[in-house]
């Protein structure tokens, strides 16, 4: 059988302020009809550029420098836009991340699907409309008749992605490229969308290229995997072989860094087992460090963001707070940090109620330095006008009234080195740091005033897996060295399991399950926890067959 798509020695470069920058350094792969290929890589690996180049959708700045793209036996590397137009949508189509912004906000779902159909087929408007309805049924949208007349803003993210899938398959193309199709969706929605995508492509014999940063996703839905790093395809092969016996060191690192059902923190970052410098032994029998009693937070419109939540955390303990978007976990973390006021219940810290102090005055409380927070998005959590040094020095200046001088510098250096931040980066501004470095600055800032409790609000959600692994290890080490209690807020049960002794699962502001991590993970009591666990795309390097068959069945 001949190849449906063949890419040979493809090189792409972008013109930037600093001249031409190469994004792809000669990659090649091939795909036969009906096959599924996963292209896996971290940010900056060039995986999205590859997909856009194949569709010839690179923006103005991007240019195919050399190489060939052969699709259905035709060389389309230099094809004219008129020829491409008849291919796109009809023979190959694409699904993007951020489904909400991928749809035209001022056209209805029906209009947009009809536009695609009529661009490629000579059919009447009414026939196209009827077909649009069929397509919505095919992507399993409830109440398709009503949804036809909806605008994208009226639909959820998952629903938008289904519409996007309907548009992409409207003309039954031979190839579907899905670029991070589930990033930004909740885990349970993620699974549903991926299952749909896999089902439809398998049913209709379409080939699919899945571009993703998530090894688990690729393992579950693809027969072949290609791993990309910095514009190169470092390894490719059948899923089972690649995971069982990865040859390239980068693939090995990547697989190791991706959490699986059984992995421990030590497994994640190979060759970097940094043992805690000293482990503080705590006298037994002390009371809890943090104790939440029936905490309640109501937002305008009588929305109970946090509804009667109680749990406690011992000194030096670690607790995971798990939930999807809208579960109230972020609100809860801000309540505990006393950045916002609660509407009921009590928060006891070291035996003393801190919920009575209004959030507006809490900055003057001596407890302020004891509770610190690390924020989700490292890009957004540092003041763009402060250097890394100033960011870390800030809490020391404010909370410990330290003045500029040797003492302050020593403390900042100490915090930075404990967070693994090289000293020569301290004079840089946030925009001059990488995501992982910014995360370290955020952690250094939080530990600088030597708090007793560290609240971590999805500290690794915006990071690549390899960096996530290192940061998780760092946090674990800090906790053990300092006897620092940690409250780890995350949507990722797997990550929480590795880092935390106990976990609390939240849904709609309520606690649905709580208990020791291992127990909850092995034997979840609530249905919601079970569905969260099921939805996580695990992969197992030792499994014999890819999980693709599950999707096809």
């Amino acid at each position, binding site marked *: 059988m001949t190849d449906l798509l063949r890419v040979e020695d493809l090189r792409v470069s972008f013109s930037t302020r600093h001249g031409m920058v190469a994004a792809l350094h000669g990659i090649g792969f091939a795909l036969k009809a009906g096959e599924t290929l996963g292209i896996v890589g971290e940010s900056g690996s060039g995986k999205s550029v590859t997909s856009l180049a194949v569709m010839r*959708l690179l923006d103005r700045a991007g240019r195919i420098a050399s190489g060939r793209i052969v699709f259905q036996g035709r060389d389309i590397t230099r094809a004219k836009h008129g020829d491409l*137009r008849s291919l796109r949508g009809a023979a190959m189509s694409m699904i993007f991340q951020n489904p909400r912004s991928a749809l*035209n*906000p001022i056209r209805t779902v029906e209009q947009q699907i009809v536009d695609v159909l009529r661009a*490629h087929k000579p059919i009447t408007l009414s026939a196209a409309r009827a077909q649009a309805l069929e397509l919505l049924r095919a992507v399993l949208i409830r109440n398709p008749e009503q949804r036809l007349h909806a605008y994208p803003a009226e639909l959820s993210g998952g629903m938008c992605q289904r519409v996007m899938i309907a548009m992409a398959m409207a003309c039954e193309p031979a190839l579907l490229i899905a670029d991070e199709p589930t990033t930004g969706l909740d885990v349970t929605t993620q699974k549903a969308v991926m299952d749909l995508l896999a089902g439809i492509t398998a049913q209709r014999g379409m080939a699919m290229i899945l571009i993703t940063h998530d090894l688990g996703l690729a393992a579950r839905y693809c027969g072949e995997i290609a791993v990309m790093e910095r514009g190169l395809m470092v390894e490719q092969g059948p899923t089972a072989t690649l995971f069982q016996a990865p040859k390239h060191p980068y693939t090995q690192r990547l697989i190791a860094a991706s959490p699986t059902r059984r992995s421990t923190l030590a497994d994640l970052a190979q060759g970097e087992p940094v043992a805690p410098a000293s482990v503080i032994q705590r006298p037994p029998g002390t009371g809890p460090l943090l104790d939440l009693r029936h905490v309640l937070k109501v937002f305008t419109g009588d929305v109970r963001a946090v509804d009667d939540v109680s749990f406690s955390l011992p000194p030096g303990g670690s607790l995971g707070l798990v939930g999807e978007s809208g579960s109230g976990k972020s609100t809860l973390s801000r309540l505990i940090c006393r950045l916002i006021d609660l509407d009921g219940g009590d928060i006891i810290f070291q035996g003393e109620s801190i919920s009575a102090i209004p959030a507006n005055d809490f900055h003057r409380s001596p407890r302020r330095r004891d509770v610190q927070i690390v924020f989700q998005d490292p890009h957004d959590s540092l003041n763009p006008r402060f250097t890394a040094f100033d960011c870390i020095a800030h809490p020391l200046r404010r909370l410990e009234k330290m003045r500029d001088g040797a003492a302050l510098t020593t403390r900042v250096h100490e915090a930075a080195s404990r967070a693994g931040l090289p000293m020569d980066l301290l004079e840089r501004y946030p925009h001059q740091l990488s995501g992982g470095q910014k995360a370290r600055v955020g952690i250094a800032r939080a530990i600088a005033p030597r708090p007793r409790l560290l609240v971590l609000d999805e500290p690794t959600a915006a990071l690549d897996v390899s960096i996530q692994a290192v940061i998780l290890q760092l946090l674990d080490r800090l906790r053990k060295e300092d006897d620092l209690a940690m409250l780890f807020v995350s949507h990722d049960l797997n990550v929480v399991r590795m880092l935390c002794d106990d976990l609390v699962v939240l849904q709609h502001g309520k606690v649905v399950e709580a208990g020791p991590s291992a127990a909850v993970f092995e034997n979840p009591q609530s249905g919601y926890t079970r569905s969260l666990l099921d939805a996580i795309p695990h992969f197992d390097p030792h499994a014999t067959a890819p999980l693709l068959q599950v999707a096809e069945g």
Partner: protein
Amino acid sequence: MSVLSGIARRVGRRLLSSIPALLGVVVVTFVLMRVLPGDPAVFFASGPSAGKEEIEQIRHQMGLDRPIPIQLARYLADVATGNLGHSLTTGQPVTQDMERRLPASLELTFTALVIALLLSVPLGVAAALRPGSPVDHAVRMLCTLGVCVPTFVSGLLLIYVFYYLLGWAPDPTARLDIFASTPPDITGFYLVDFAMTGDWSGWWAAFTQLLLPAISMALFVLAPLARMTRASMLAVLGSDFIRTAQSVGLSRRRVVITYALRNALLPVLTITGIVFSTMLGANVLVEKVFSWPGVASYALDALLASDYAPVQAFVLLMATIFVLVNVLIDVLYGIADPRVSIE
């Protein structure tokens, strides 16, 4: 049908919600004219030589010796009944003067707006479709220079070139040559009235007379409109859904017009409101330059003659028109962008 009733509801709601702003406008106007330093009675007196007793008498007549809230209430009642006082210069009720002169101002402003939109939108789109091209550079230069030339200077220079040097334009005073006959007063808009009576030579005369002031006003607002069209078109062309439209193989026409332009025009519509406000202000300058017999030049003459009732009425009128135009723009926006009504 439901669409229409939806629009009607929207207009109604928007009109209702503009009432506080209008009330605020009336109060601010009142404060400006009555409460701030300067005794209005002196302004409303027969002349600078008016005696103390006469002023006292006027104070009493105008109710200026009453407490401020009562004065405000009276003023509100007067405004509501359309009683805006008398002009000292013309001796007529201000409402009547305004009614006669308003069409001249509106005709000028709307013609200028139409000229500006017809030029700026295609220019902005052309520039955005080929960023970095000579067309783009030319448009950007035009945008940069356009906002720098004050209307009164560009108006005078247009007169110099087209009237004095080339002789193409008619004498730049008033709406028609003083010897030409005015059209029958149907709408007050000369272009409309001439067209309705089929007097095409009269229409042409009025049109050429209108052209220079309208162009000098349009030149000033061309830049912000073209700049916004270019910027929003560029932003839309770079957005995800345009990439989607290309990825499913829609024709270029469809991508540029139906997908990109219709989205790009939304911010242009919003800025048109601000531009309109600028134009109402620029009216004052253009009407002075071209001796245009509109409400602005009427108010200006009154202002310089310390005749305050027309000024007050003018400020109120301009603000009301602007509020109503904003209602219109808001409604149009609601029709053009479904996201507004979803919320």
